[in-house]
């Protein structure tokens, strides 16, 4: 399954590729990276029919992760893609807002990849 990772920090790509290298090797996961909210939307428009799981940062210059979330959940009605938020700002306010906007999960940095893998497992079938 295709996983779109959205974060403004480039090192995220290396980290995710290494963390999920087994899954990538086995073909369980296909990682795609976007480094801003805008880039993520562009990718989704270009690959409309792909089943996508989105892991997005919140604090980003320009379109924030929450705006991206709102956009995706409003635009893709059936079935809206799974969007998990990953943020360093794991306060209640951010969490509640993300949930209200329809986030499927809320993870805080530093990312616990074991727990993330657990959460992804049922959806990787």
């Amino acid at each position, binding site marked *: 399954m295709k996983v779109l990772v959205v974060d403004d920090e480039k090192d995220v790509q290396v980290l995710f590729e290494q963390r999920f290298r087994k899954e990538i090797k086995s073909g369980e996961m296909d990682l795609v990276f976007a480094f801003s909210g805008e880039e993520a939307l562009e990718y989704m428009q270009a690959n409309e029919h792909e089943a996508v799981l989105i892991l997005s940062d919140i604090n980003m210059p320009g379109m924030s992760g929450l705006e991206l979330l709102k956009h995706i959940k409003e635009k893709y009605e059936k079935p809206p893609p799974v969007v998990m938020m990953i943020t360093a*700002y794991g*306060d209640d306010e951010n969490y509640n807002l993300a949930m209200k906007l329809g986030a499927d999960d809320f993870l805080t*940095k530093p990312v616990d990849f074991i727990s993330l893998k657990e959460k992804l497992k049922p959806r990787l079938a």
Partner: protein
Amino acid sequence: MKKILFLTLLLVAYANAFTQSREEITDLQHRLAIAKDDTSRINAQIGMCYMYRLGNSDSSLLYGQRALKLSEQINYPKGEILALSVMGLTMQQLGNLPKALELAFKALGIAKTYNLEDLTGVALNDIGETYIILKDYPKALHYLHIQKSNSEAYGSEEGLAYSKYDLGVVFKEMNQLDSALFYEQQAIGHFKIINREEPLVYAALGDIEMKSGKNIEALKFYKQSLQSSLTNNERRASASAYNKIAIFFNLVNQRDSAIYYATKGLEESTIISKKKTIQEAAALLSVLYESTDAKESLRYLKIADTYKDSLFGTGNLQAVQTLVAHEEQRQKEIKATKIEYQNQLKQYALMAGLAMLLLIAFFLYRNNRKEKNAKNVLQQKNKVIEQTLINLKSTQTQLIQSEKMASLGELTAGIAHEIQNPLNFVNNFSEVNTELIDELSQEVDKGNLDEVKALAKDIKENEQKINHHGKRADAIVKGMLQHSRSSNGVKDPTDINALCDEYLRLSYHGLRAKDNTLNATMKTDFDPSIGNINIIPQDIGRVVLNLLTNAFYAVDEKKKACQAEPVEAGKVYEPTVSISTKKINGKVEITVKDNGNGISEAVKEKIFQPFFTTKPTGLGTGLGLSLSYDIITKGHAGELKVETKEGEGSNFIIILPV
């Protein structure tokens, strides 16, 4: 009334005709009888004293004493002066010269005490004439001159006439005949004015002619004097005239005529008891009878001697001398008193001066005291002000600190979360490396060298990432510490671009941490040619942070306002905050730009004032821009400018000299 009486008295005193006197006496007696008040009684008594002066000296003195006593009782100095003066005349007439002088001096003394110098004419004349008799001409001149001056001052024609007559007599006696003639002629003039013919003046003129050797002319004047005195029934003058004519005839050796006139003179003199003329006549008769009738001669000689003794006798002269001595003593005392008085005055003046000085000293002292007090008060006030200043300074320091902490607070959230980002990499890469190392050892066991190499490369790369992000976290923490630390005021070479970038990130994320709806496009445009410039990094960092925070606040406000309104197509608001650096003409410009609502003119004027804020209460200290302004202008000799357009945004420009 009193003045008229006084004039009358003087007039009467000199124009003494016996018949007239009798009428006057009758009139005075009548007045005395009807006198209702004491002063009229006194004046009448003085008048009687005058009238009885010639020939009835006892009555004269009796009335004089009564007038004096009554005057003393009712404290009537005018009466005292006149009574004493007139009694003095009577005494002189009687030949009691010491008494005459005593009374006259007493009168002068009283007049002086009461400032009644206008009443001293009689007394002065009395003294003058007495000194003539005593042949003390300088003294006589002295008193007669005083009488003359007084008479001129008080306009007394009569006083002038008699003083000048007597002055003429003195000069005649002193053989200064021109002066004598001058005064006698003047006296005649004054007498004419008051319609009187004074026989004594002619007698004096006769004497002068006699002394000039003009015997015939002398006799003429003597005869005129006699004629006049007989007409006026004035025995004093007639006695004198008879004597003088007798002397003349004796001189020209007409013995019978001489005896005739001398006998007449003695008769008249005896009637009025005038010792001087009695003595003169008797002495002449004694000489005249010497050759013919020794017995008669001796008789006259005895008479003459008797009167001579009583006039110039040792006792009398001694008395006069004593009196004069007393008078001189008295004058000395008066002088001494005067000097003492003057000394006293000087003393008083001195004391007054001293008192004034004391007063001035007191006032000066008081002023000094006041000044000192004022100074003390001022000093105390100054102390209070100083203390207030110290308090204010400490408050200011506290405010600056609180502003710093407030901006730090804005940062903390950002920093805390921002640290999670590098930590995310550090933790995960190190975990990945652990896994990779496990894989590596498995591959080693397998002997798969290519795979080992690839893994080792990955591990190394990851290791570099760990190191990089660890340093990043370190920099964030350091930046926060640096911000909270108080400025040490030391300028360090600083990469201004890196500083701006760091604070842009910090402020944005800090604000985002507090308000996650905040969203803005951040643009940077750094001039790489700037390099390091000398600044106080904490301070400039604070200014940049402050400007950025304001910029984010401004765009956020505008975004909220836009969301509240219906969005028109193509008019989507894109909040943008940009920071740029530029090197121009050796100066570095840092521009913080936002596309918020801009600042109105009214607000623009105040933004650099301390405690001015447009933020809701509790959200802004109002010190940010004020402190920023101080840091740039005072701390770095730079400029902080604002360019703004309402509705379009603001540019805050920091200009720093390199």
